[in-house]
């Protein structure tokens, strides 16, 4: 018997959805019970309203029933708190006290640790990319100098003479080599530095992906933990209640 024509069911469902939207802060079991009661009323009123136009009948019923906000006015948690008889009120008070006494100090400490960790990671990341950038820059310059030694040895000599290039310490052996060998070794060194910088950059991309995954994992876990606490405080079920109005097949 609990069946509407499709058009009527759509209108009634829309109204119930609007009522439900006003009840989002009400525990799910209470929501379901109230929506079921409203549905029962609407169905009976519709059934007893005379007329051949189904849509006109349900619209007349809804006009006479009133706006969703009026219908739920005393079902909202604020009203329950004002009257001091909210069933979950003691739980909220206990939760508030626990948060005030323990949560805030621990929360502040946790916040500090989190900020410190993030700052350390950010510093590590900057340092890492600075090293990679330095290697790339040094490699590029070294490669250019090797090319200079090969293509324009007079420029190389001039640079050595004015002190831009120092061939001291381990690099002294280069002076004993021919110009072409010297150029090849310098270019090989530059290429190695470039390869090292490029490798660090590639590794950095993977590292960022890994860190992003780690952050997402931690934040997702925190979000689900907070949702679970909220659900327990409200005493609601995670499942979404089904629509109440049945449609005619």
């Amino acid at each position, binding site marked *: 018997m609990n069946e509407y024509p499709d058009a009527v069911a759509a209108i009634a469902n829309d109204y119930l959805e609007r009522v439900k939207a006003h009840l989002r802060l009400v525990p799910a079991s209470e929501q379901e019970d109230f929506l079921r009661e409203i549905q*029962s*009323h609407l169905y009976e009123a519709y059934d007893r309203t005379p007329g051949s136009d189904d849509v006109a009948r349900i619209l007349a019923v809804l006009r006479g029933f009133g706006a969703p906000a009026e219908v739920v006015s*005393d079902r909202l948690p604020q009203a329950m708190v004002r009257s001091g008889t909210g069933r979950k009120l003691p739980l909220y008070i206990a939760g508030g006290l626990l948060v005030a006494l323990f949560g805030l100090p621990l929360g502040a400490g946790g916040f500090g640790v989190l900020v410190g960790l993030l700052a350390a990671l950010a510093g590590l990341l900057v340092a890492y990319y600075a090293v990679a950038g330095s290697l790339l820059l040094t490699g590029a310059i070294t490669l250019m100098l090797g090319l200079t030694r090969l293509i324009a040895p007079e420029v190389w000599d001039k640079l050595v003479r004015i002190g831009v290039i120092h061939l001291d310490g381990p690099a002294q052996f280069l002076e004993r080599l021919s110009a072409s060998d010297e150029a090849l070794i310098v270019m090989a060194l530059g290429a190695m530095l470039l390869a090292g910088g490029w490798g660090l950059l590639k590794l950095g991309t993977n590292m960022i992906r890994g860190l992003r995954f780690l952050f997402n994992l931690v934040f997702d876990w925190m979000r689900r933990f907070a949702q679970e606490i909220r659900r327990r405080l409200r005493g609601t079920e995670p499942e979404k209640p089904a629509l109440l109005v049945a449609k005619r097949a």
Partner: protein
Amino acid sequence: MEYPDENKDENRDRRITQLRKGILELAVMGVLFHERHYGYSLVRVLTESGSISIKEGTIYPILARLDRDGLVRSEWVESDQGPPRKYYTLTPLGRQAFNELSQEFDLLVSLAQRHWTEQSKSKLAVRKG
């Protein structure tokens, strides 16, 4: 201060609505005092016998308030004419509250309808003085 006619009508309607809303809770308890009802049947009784014009949905905040205060209890009953119905019954606490509120209401009605003679007014004036 003079108000335009339409404002007078609006103010009058607003006052009547406020008065009805205030009395509606008592009227609901009065109907439930004699027999159990579900939302729709309660509205029908109130609107047909009492010539009260209300939005039908406004009965539910009242029933929710009474339920929360322990003045009514409710139960779902299957119906062969449609979906199940949620019936409300006045609890012993509700009956006691209704009796007290009825007395208070009678007092207010008698006060509102009392013929204020010059004598009673002068008595009040003496008491105030």
